């Protein structure tokens, strides 16, 4: 019985926490931060990858922050609803959240979103999901060079599946194609699993997905990873060259980090980033992330900010070239 109501319980708890927040706000001083529970908003469903990471992090962060840290899920709108809540919260350090590439660096370019990357204060990058190009057994090529040669010879014919229109994998595919000077046919599926399944069944030639999603099929020999969009080769697929190695200057990965609304008191921001720095090196946290198959990549605030801005810029170019820029702007406003 108890298990069936955690969602509701969490909601009422966080409502309580919020209520408490409003009452205590004027009294809280930056010096005695955190005087009450710190809330991490996760803009995705409970049980997903980001949520699980945030929950593990919350536990570890309590140790270094010296206060309670709770996770609250606010899913919907591809993450934009929760992200908007984070960036529009009172900048007192009691409401922070996970900031992911999609809602931060991509969604604002489509329009219809009430925030932009500029509204975010960056705390720490916590992980990156790398991008790999997998090809099916039936595809008429079996390495990155062959892939590029085929794409050049057959412009717009080579089908590459992604996890959804306008998502990170779609942008990665199109960004790569632009950098390589080829034309690919992007096929948006309802999720990475559906795209990989279509590739397994030979309905499409290739698929762009994260290593964790592909590795079992690679081990089973049904999909071959021919390229990764990283600076260096990755441990999962040591034989797959980077895009740079085959002459295409392009790197891309989906990332997540911790962000807060802009305008945090400097002492609070310093406390948060220091605690995060310790948490990221905590052996318990590192082990749990490894067990979960998460690709940890801790970067301090400044580097996180630089990465987010770089990706937002690239995404904007790709989205403009796809004719998707501002497509969701509410014209009436």
């Amino acid at each position, binding site marked *: *019985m108890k*298990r*069936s*109501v*955690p*969602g*509701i319980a969490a*909601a009422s708890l966080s409502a309580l926490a919020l209520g408490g927040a409003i009452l205590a706000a004027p009294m809280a001083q930056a010096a005695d931060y955190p005087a009450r529970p710190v809330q991490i908003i996760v803009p995705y*469903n*409970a*049980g*997903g990858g980001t949520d*699980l990471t945030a*929950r593990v992090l919350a536990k570890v962060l309590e140790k270094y922050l010296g206060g309670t840290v709770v996770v609250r*899920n*606010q*899913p*919907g*709108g*591809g993450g*934009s*609803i929760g992200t908007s809540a984070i960036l529009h919260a009172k900048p007192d350090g009691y409401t922070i959240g996970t900031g992911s590439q999609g809602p931060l660096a991509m969604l604002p370019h*489509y329009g*219809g*979103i*009430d925030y932009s990357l500029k509204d975010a204060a960056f705390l720490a990058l916590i992980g990156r999901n790398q991008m790999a190009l997998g090809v099916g057994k039936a595809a008429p090529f079996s390495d990155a060079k062959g892939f590029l040669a085929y794409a050049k010879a057959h412009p717009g014919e080579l089908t590459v599946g992604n996890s*959804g*229109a*306008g*998502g990170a994998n*779609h942008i990665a595919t199109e960004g790569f194609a632009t950098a390589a000077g080829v034309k690919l*046919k992007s*096929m*948006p*599926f*309802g999720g990475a*699993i*559906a795209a*990989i*399944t*279509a590739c*397994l*069944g*030979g*309905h*499409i030639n290739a698929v762009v997905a994260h290593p964790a999603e592909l*590795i*079992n*099929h690679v*081990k*089973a020999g*049904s999909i071959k990873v021919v390229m990764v969009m990283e600076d260096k080769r990755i441990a999962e697929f040591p034989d797959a060259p980077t895009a740079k190695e085959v002459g295409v200057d392009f790197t891309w990965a989906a990332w997540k980090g911790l962000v807060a609304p802009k305008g945090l008191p400097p002492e609070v921001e310093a406390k948060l980033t220091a605690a995060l720095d310790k948490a990221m090196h905590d052996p318990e946290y590192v082990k749990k992330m490894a*067990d*979960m*198959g998460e690709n940890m990549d801790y970067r301090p605030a400044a580097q996180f900010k630089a990465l987010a801005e770089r990706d937002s810029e690239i995404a904007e170019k790709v989205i403009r070239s796809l004719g*998707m820029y501002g*497509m*969701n702007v*509410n014209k*009436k406003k």
Partner: protein
Amino acid sequence: MEQLSYVLAALSPNVLWVTALGTLGGIVIGALPGLTATMGVALLVPMTFGMEPVNGLSMLIGIFVGGIYGGCISSILIKTPGTPASAATVLDGYPMAQNGQAGKALGMATIASAAGGLFSSVVLATVAPQLASVALKFGPAEYFALALFGLTIIASLSGDIVKGVIAGMLGVLLSCVGADPITGASRYTFGVTGFAAGFAFTPALIGLFAVSEVFVQLEKIFEDKVKPVSVSGVWPSWSELRECWGTLLRGSIIGTFIGIVPGVGSGTASWISYNEARRASRTPEKFGTGYMPGVAATESANNAVCGGALVPLLALGVPGDVVTAVLMGGLMIHGLAPGPLLFRDNPGVVVGLFTSSFTANIFMFVFGMAGIPYFSKILLIPKKVLTVCIALFCFIGSYAINMNSVDLYTMLGFGVVGYGMQKYNFSQAALCIALILGPMAEANLRLGLLNVDGDLVAFCSGPITLFFLALTPVSLAWPMIQNRRAKKKALARQNSEVS
């Protein structure tokens, strides 16, 4: 011998205990509107971190099986589908309960769920690797043909064909709200971010079936006549069972097949099974009035999906539905790679999963049968009080899914639409089917045409596509033929009586 030792390991008290616990938890989760099997499994995956793989996975399978079954309880008793999988059970289950056969309806649903679950477990344990390849044969064109075939159910479910088509069209239209599947652009959201992913499905279903019923009940809330509802009798009679035997088998086969095809899911399976049961029946007019085979058809199919969906997951590493996708996460956390290598590297885990799939269904049957007399006591609550409670449940359930207040408006909106449909005899089932299959048809039609550059001949040329496309007009015409036959029979009877 090695295999047997794995089976025995999966039958150890430790494993049985967590499987039973999972199944019981699953039944509760399924019965509560707004908590689905997917959420149950997702929330418990982290709990299995510290367990032995077979223990943890057995618990998750228990939740899966129990969760899909549990949905029928609230469908039958209070017309509130606990999970989308059991929306079709409302059609005959709720009228049965209103006719004083709540116990029997739940009894049949339990028997059917166990039958479907056990059937698909047998399939899973015997021919999983052979059948799994079917899962990969489905590309966009095949999915589109299957969805189109599924949409023809509307013709036979909705008495008045014109009104059925109107309801179906409305459903397809409503399913267009949200992100365009190919371009990602927001459609018909009017700038409301909460609608960016379309109407949330469970709140829409709760509104369509439960809230509309609350409105209907409110009309007569002051008529103080409390109908004594009988809840006695749990086991269907032998003659009733014999009547349902064929339906159970058909439902189990349909459910298992749909389960194997990735991404289709138990909602679709139960509707198709319901329609096929009706088509094969000698008394199709009885469906929808509280007819036991109607319950048998839907519940056998949706629970057969559980075993079916595990087939491609274990054999290919491709999850068959949303729940198994979460389950795959659970497997990988334990360092197990679902797919052909799992059979080679971890046969103990595979056999353990097969075994737990059986035991979970047996537990589900025992708990279900034992619990029915208590579940059905809900109906002894005075209607006035019950109606208010249901209304409250609708709100909590719709909100709990995403914690998004926009979903409450979705629920109320669909409630008003459902109420109007009920008043003017439009089929709510038709709208529900269109909501499930409309997006599947649209996304796959466009994706498939994109793949072949709009070449219709190439699009339709696959054998599976052709098969379902050929069945579609047959399925459309069948209810009309059935109608005409029934009329002829009635006419003949009249004539013979006259002469």
